[in-house]
């Protein structure tokens, strides 16, 4: 009888244990289901990003390029289904999720990533990708990421009589006046204190203007370098030795470009990249005759002194992007300290000059047209007829060469 009772007791305990195990298992399965959905989605998104990265590194990737792998234990497949980046007409592709026809617009690509869990739940993440929009610089005649220092009276003039008082100045810190103030045919504005009177108003305590982020500048510079390297390559010494000469197409200059005589002209291209410093002295001239939205990138510093000059095509969105920073002694002239030291002489259109990581000092007695932007300070030290705003420079942009999702969708 005791044995029977013990057996009954054991049976009861087993039933209780089984019930507990069954309930725990059910709860666990429910919780796993949601996390599995996210894991599958993340894997599919990762696959799509892989296709985008592939297109960025190889814009002429073939249709149907395919990669596969695994993210967090979930297998994925990545497809460049239709690469229409280089074409001006539309293309078609088949949506793998629905089987319907997708119209792929010109200058874009249709890519997707697909992942599935072991239970068969399949997620498609699809996108139409295209070139990322170019980076815009702030409009106006002068923009400084820190201070604008008005050191000597240097007129900043409007672009033309039809656009009265449009030569605006903006400082993300202060606009400081150290002597007789410059005349400004536009508005002066500062995030902090604005000491300079503008014909269109003087505004302190304003919201800052946006400059491209350092990572964006880096992307743009890398893009310019890659494209320039796809053109003609010279050393700086070669160009200096050649003297007056025109270089057509995209040009990559390796090393410092130091010109003290003759005129070096870059034309019929879009990108010039100087992998070093640009030092112009004596009567050396560099002419960026590339038109439209061309970019002249200098990885180091820029100095223009004496009777030398730099000029760009007038009325174009020409950009000189300078990556060097301020230092106690600059390589071209140890007496100078700014990323760009521009001693003006004569009359020169300069386009937009942009010292992304440093300051710009405008000096001398010349007359320039264009726009000036600096990540740090802009120093107005000119003693001549000054600077005239070129309205076309309000549209200055930089291409990053990256792709972005124009539209993103999931199945």
């Amino acid at each position: 009888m005791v044995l029977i009772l013990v057996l009954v007791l054991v049976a009861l305990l087993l039933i209780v244990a089984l019930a507990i195990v069954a309930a725990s298992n059910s709860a666990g399965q429910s919780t796993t289901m949601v996390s599995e959905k996210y894991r599958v989605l993340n894997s599919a998104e990762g696959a799509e990003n892989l296709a985008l990265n592939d297109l960025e590194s190889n814009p002429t990737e073939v249709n149907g390029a395919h990669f596969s792998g695994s993210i967090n234990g979930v297998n994925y497949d990545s497809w460049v289904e239709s690469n229409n980046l280089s074409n001006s007409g539309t293309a078609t592709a088949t949506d793998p999720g629905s089987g319907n026809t997708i119209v792929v617009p010109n200058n874009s690509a249709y890519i997707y990533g697909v992942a599935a869990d072991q239970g068969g739940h399949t997620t498609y993440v699809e996108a139409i990708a295209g070139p990322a929009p170019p980076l815009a610089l702030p409009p106006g005649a002068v923009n400084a990421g820190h201070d604008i220092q008005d050191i000597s009276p240097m007129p900043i003039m409007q672009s033309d009589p039809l656009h009265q008082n449009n030569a605006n100045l903006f400082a993300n810190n202060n606009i400081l006046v150290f002597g007789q103030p410059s005349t400004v045919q536009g508005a002066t504005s500062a995030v902090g204190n604005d000491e300079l009177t503008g014909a269109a108003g003087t505004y302190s305590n304003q919201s800052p203007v946006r400059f491209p982020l350092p990572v964006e500048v880096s992307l743009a510079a890398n893009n310019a370098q890659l494209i320039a390297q796809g053109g003609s390559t010279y050393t700086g010494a070669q160009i200096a030795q050649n003297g007056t000469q025109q270089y057509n197409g995209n040009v990559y200059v390796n090393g410092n470009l130091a010109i003290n005589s003759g005129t070096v002209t870059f034309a019929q291209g879009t990108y010039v990249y100087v992998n070093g410093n640009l030092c112009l002295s004596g009567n050396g001239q560099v002419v960026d005759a590339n038109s439209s939205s061309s970019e002249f990138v200098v990885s180091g510093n820029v100095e223009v002194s004496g009777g030398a000059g730099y000029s760009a095509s007038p009325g174009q969105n020409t950009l000189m992007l300078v990556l060097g920073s301020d230092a106690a002694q600059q390589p071209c002239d140890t007496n100078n300290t700014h990323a760009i030291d521009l001693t003006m002489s004569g009359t020169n259109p300069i386009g937009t000059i942009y010292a992304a990581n440093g300051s710009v000092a405008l000096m001398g007695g010349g007359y320039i047209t264009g726009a000036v932007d600096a990540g740090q300070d802009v120093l107005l030290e000119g003693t001549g007829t000054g600077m005239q705003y070129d309205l076309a420079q309000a549209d200055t942009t930089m291409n990053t060469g990256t792709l972005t999702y124009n539209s993103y969708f999931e199945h």
Partner: protein
Amino acid sequence: MRRRQRAFSVVEVLTVLVIVGLILAAIAITAPLFLNAQNEVQAQTDNINSAALALYRVQRDVRQSDVNGVFNCTTAPVVLCSQTGGNAVTTQALAIITADNGTGEFQPITTGAAAGQPDWQGFWYYWLVPDPNGQSNDLLREYENTGPINLTTASLPSVELLAQTWLTTALGGSPETVATNVESLSAAADTGDSIVQLQLVGGGTSSGNVTSLSLSGSSYVRN
């Protein structure tokens, strides 16, 4: 001579019966507690699962949307939609612009300067209604095709007005139930960073057990 086996005495039998009775009583008392604990876990899991799946659905629609087309809305006493930034705030309904034409097919623009961009077709709506027991809410979802919406040229008030006009239609439609036992829904759209913050507070009674939980997350709006 075979020795006669001694039987249990009455005292011994009674002692055994008392001990067995005590053990059974202990099992009877403790087993429901064990089983009920699992029911509580299961109830919580059910609610977490339901809320998590609902949040997943909302986030999925948000990801395919445009941050300038996500609005917090009221359903009572008046229908009103507006863009809400900052931290997530409680809302009765959520309108999410979509390029889905209602069949699950995403519609991109195919010609012109905007080729490749989403061709917005309507809104996905989510809203809360009290459940039949009046103890919590159900989260409902409904699609409304408004016709093409150009977010680039349309003013914010005009899109808000469009969202609230079609929300009225959605409220009278045949929505699907996305989740039950939802206490509240909160959202905010950060147009600067293209981030939509969402919070779903779930709770209610499941298997006789009352539970409450809060799920939240930020979704990057991809379009």
